[in-house]
C-alpha cells in the first residue's frame, strides 16, 4: 500500500529574541490510508508545531511533505484551499476552535458551502447527517456554539472536520480538554468512523494511554526530533529511546497490565 502522507526532514524554527528556537528538527514519518499514527511527547517537544506544519497552518523551513503523491508544501492560495478539503484538523480546545458567534449549523455548514458539497437547500440535511455521524441529535444544529457543552463542542468540531470527507484528520490533543467518560465516547466514535470510511488519523497527544487506545503506530518526539517510531504494541512493550521509556514509566496504571 502506498503511503497517504510522507514527511521527510521536516523542520521549523522560530526566532525568540535573538535566539533561534528549533521547534521541529528533521521530522520524517509516513501515514498509510486507514491508519492512525500517534505522535507522543512531553510538552514543548514540538508536537503541536509538527501538527500545524502538516496542516499548513505554518510553513516549514526545511523538508518535504507529500500528500497523495503531490507536494503539499508547494501549494499556495486557491490550490491550497482546494486541497484542504482532503486534510482536516481538530483542535485541542473546542471552545477556542469554534467561532463564539456561530451556530452549530454554521460551523458544520461552512466547509460544505466553501467546497460546494451541498447547496443551500440541501445543507440542513447534510448537517443533520454529520451530527448523526458524531452521535449528536439533529436538533443541535440551531443552537449557538456557546450554548452547548464542551464534549458536544468537540463532537461538532469533529463533524466539521468530517464534512468534506477528508482522507486525513490531524487531531491535536483533541480529547485532552475533555473529561474521562466523554473522552472514551469520542475515541470510540473516531475508531468506528475510521472503520466505516478508511480515514487516516494523526493523533497528537502528551497522554500515551490515550494514544495507545487508538494508534496503530506511535512516533515519540522530544526536543523537536522524532526519537522513535514503531507499531504501538512494540513501542509500549519495549521502548528504545530514553524519552519513550520515561513517558511509559510515567503511566503507573499501564505498566502492571503490560508486564
Amino acid at each position: 500500500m502506498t503511503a497517504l502522507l510522507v514527511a521527510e526532514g521536516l523542520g521549523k524554527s522560530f526566532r525568540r529574541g535573538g535566539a533561534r528556537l528549533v521547534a521541529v528538527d528533521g521530522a520524517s514519518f509516513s501515514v498509510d490510508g486507514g491508519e492512525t499514527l500517534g505522535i507522543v511527547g512531553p510538552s514543548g517537544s514540538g508536537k503541536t508545531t509538527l501538527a500545524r506544519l502538516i496542516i499548513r497552518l505554518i510553513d516549514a523551513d526545511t523538508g518535504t511533505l507529500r500528500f497523495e503523491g503531490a507536494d503539499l508544501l508547494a501549494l499556495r492560495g486557491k490550490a491550497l484551499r482546494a486541497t484542504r478539503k482532503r486534510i482536516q484538523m481538530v483542535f485541542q480546545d473546542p471552545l477556542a476552535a469554534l467561532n463564539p458567534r456561530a451556530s452549530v449549523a454554521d460551523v458544520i455548514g461552512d466547509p460544505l458551502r466553501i467546497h460546494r458539497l451541498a447547496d443551500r437547500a440541501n445543507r440542513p440535511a447534510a448537517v443533520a447527517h454529520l451530527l448523526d455521524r458524531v452521535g449528536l441529535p439533529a436538533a443541535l444544529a440551531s443552537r449557538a456554539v456557546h450554548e452547548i457543552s464542551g464534549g458536544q463542542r468537540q463532537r461538532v468540531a469533529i463533524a466539521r472536520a468530517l464534512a468534506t470527507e477528508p482522507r486525513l484528520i490531524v487531531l491535536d490533543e483533541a480529547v485532552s480538554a475533555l473529561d474521562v467518560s466523554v473522552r472514551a465516547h469520542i475515541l470510540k466514535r473516531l475508531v468506528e468512523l475510521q472503520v466505516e470510511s478508511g480515514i487516516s488519523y494523526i493523533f497528537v497527544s502528551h497522554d500515551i494511554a490515550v494514544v495507545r487506545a487508538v494508534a496503530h503506530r506511535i512516533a515519540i518526539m522530544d526536543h523537536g526530533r522524532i526519537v522513535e517510531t514503531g507499531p504501538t504494541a512494540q513501542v509500549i512493550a519495549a521502548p528504545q529511546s530514553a524519552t519513550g521509556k520515561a513517558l511509559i514509566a510515567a503511566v503507573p496504571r499501564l505498566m502492571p497490565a503490560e508486564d
Partner: protein
Amino acid sequence: MSLIARFSRSPEGLFGAAVLAVLIAVALAAPLLFPRDPLSIVGPALTAPFTDWALPLGTDRLGRNVLAELAHGSRASLLVGFAATLAAILIGASVGTIAGFAGGLVDEVLMRVVDAFQTVPGFLLALAFVSVIGASLPVVVLAIALGAWTGPARLARAEVLSLRERDYVAAARVIGMHPAEIAFREILPNALAPVLALSAVIVAGAILTEAALSFLGLGDPNIVTWGSMIAEGRAVLRSSPFLSIIPGLALVVTVLGVYLFGEGLSEALSRRQVRL
C-alpha cells in the same frame, strides 16, 4: 445576563438613553409639530422667550420661531452625528481589519496613512474639505468622518491582531475559507464590540464639529442647524443672548446624553468581557 440587562444597571447609561430617546422623538416629530418651514417668519423680531405662549422660546432677529428652529435643528445634528459616525466606523473598521489581518507591508502602509490623518486636527480637515468641495449635508458628513475614522481603525487593528491568533481563525483556514471571508466574517464581528463603544464619543464629537462648521457658515445653508442658530444669535449677543444660549444648551444636553449613553454601553460590554 443580556447586554440590555447589564446596560440597565448603569444609571448614567439610562439617563443618556432617555436624553437620546427624547431627542430622536423630537427630531422625528419636528415636521408634525412644526409643519411650517422653520426658516419662515412668524412674528415680530426678537421676542424674548416665555413672553408669548404661541412662541414659547421667542423669535430670532428675523422673527422666526426659535422652538421650531430648535426642533428642526435637532434633525441635522442627529443625522450628521449618526451618519458621520457610521461612515467613520465603516471606513475605520475595514481599514483596521485589513491592516491587522494582512500584516506586513499592507499593515505598514495603511497605518502610516492613519498616522497622516491623525496628525492633522479633525476639525481643520473637515474645514478644508468642506471649503474645497462646497457645503451640503453629504459633504459635511464625509468631511467629519474623514477626521474620525482613525480611532476605530486603530482599535479594530488591535482587536484583529489578538483575534487572528485564535484557534477558530486557524480552523477557518483549515476548512479552506477565503482570507477575505475570514477577515470580515469570522474576525471583524468579534472585534466590533469595543469599536462600537467608541462610537458614542465619535457621535458627540461629530455633532460638535457639525455645529462648529455651521457656526462658521460652512454648513448646509438650506437647513437649520444649532450651529447656524448660534452664529445668527452672535450678531445680537448683547441684547438677546438667549438666541445663542438656547441652541448652545441643546448642544450641551445632546452631547452629554450621547456621551453618557456610550459610557453605559462600554461599561456593559466590558462587564461581559470580564465574565468571559
